[in-house]
């Protein structure tokens, strides 16, 4: 279960939304129109277990998410879910990696402070002895044109 976001953590004017996560529970979130730009030259890396629970996060992942490491490890990756992201994108992500294939996509992520950041994410299943044991996601800086296209596309999807 993910707790609701805390209004006291939000910086500046915000909107409110309720996300339905893994079709089971809902989470109240607050988000602003402030973008945090992708850190130049870096890779944001995390690993999850087979259910999407974060098991490893590199320092820049923690910094960009705005949470403490403890608030991230052991929690579902949907802690970064932004309301502007269409759920079909994540359905496609899970279908793809569960088939043992690599997924790539442009993702808008929500920070603890309500700001957002865009990434180009690549997610792969980690196969050991023929079985998927975990998933790794590596994000890099997306191009301006790729983000613009995604903004347009995601508005048409739900």
């Amino acid at each position, binding site marked *: 279960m993910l707790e609701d976001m805390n209004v006291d953590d939000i910086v500046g004017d915000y909107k409110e939304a309720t996300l339905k996560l893994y079709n089971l529970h809902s989470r109240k979130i607050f988000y602003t129109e402030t973008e945090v730009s992708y850190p130049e030259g870096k890779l944001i890396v995390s690993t999850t277990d087979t259910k999407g629970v974060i098991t490893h996060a590199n320092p820049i992942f923690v910094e960009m998410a705005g949470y403490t490491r403890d608030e991230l490890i052991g929690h579902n990756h949907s802690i970064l879910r932004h309301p502007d992201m269409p759920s079909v994108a994540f359905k496609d992500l899970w279908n793809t990696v569960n088939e043992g294939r*690599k997924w790539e996509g442009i993702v808008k992520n929500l920070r603890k402070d309500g700001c957002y950041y865009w990434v180009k994410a690549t997610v792969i299943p980690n196969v050991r002895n023929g079985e998927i044991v975990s998933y790794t996601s590596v994000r890099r800086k997306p191009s301006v044109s790729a983000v613009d296209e995604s903004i347009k596309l995601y508005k048409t999807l739900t």
Partner: protein
Amino acid sequence: MPHMFTISPDFPPNSLAGWYIFNTWFQKNTGLNIHLNLYNSFEEQTIAIDNNKNDIVYVNPVDAVRLVRDKGFLPIARVKNRLDEVVIAVSEENPISMMCGLKPDLKLAMTANPDVNMISMMLLEAVDLNNSNVVKTTYDSYIIVVKNILKGEADAGLFLAKAYDDLSNVVKKQLKILLRSDVEELYHSLLIGPELADRQDEIQTLLVSMTDNPVGKGVLEALDFEGWLKIENEEMEFMIDLIDTLVPDTD
């Protein structure tokens, strides 16, 4: 038959003597008979490795992944405080001062170093540049890459950051860094072939403890290394996963 030891051809030439000193020390401390085998190019090295010519290697992450996965090599150690980062640089006289100034039809000068090229292409993707809209030329050494940038034959060069930093100050003054990566996850590694598998723990302990005695320290100094860090099997697996996300799909 002696064991064959090879190191990535991207080492700076002045550390060559260091590797010979290391090999002498290593043989003495393991009792193994080892011949140091150096190749002039990545191409030659790859062919030799593929023909099972070497069972001790010091290689870049891309080659390490191939050797561990396809050839059953095992991780030993990596060099302390030595990560594989890249520098993308242009001539000091180039009006471009930021990555976003780089445009399609860019002429890139590079070496055959596979991890430098992989990381660089990933960084260039952020400004909409990719294999289909850049012109790449591969040269034998970083100094030739520099010459081509300065002659105007290439717009930008791709460097292993350590190799860039080791260029002389006179050369560096004529260049301008557009971007230095800060990936912090990729490194060269020393690996052993499967036939040496039963020596893995022993060799790891031996290398990690080099800093504990004056002779070991002297050998490390000759290599310009601060020391070795053990690579756990799981760390190696993690680097393999990471490389998998970074290499473009070939299919």
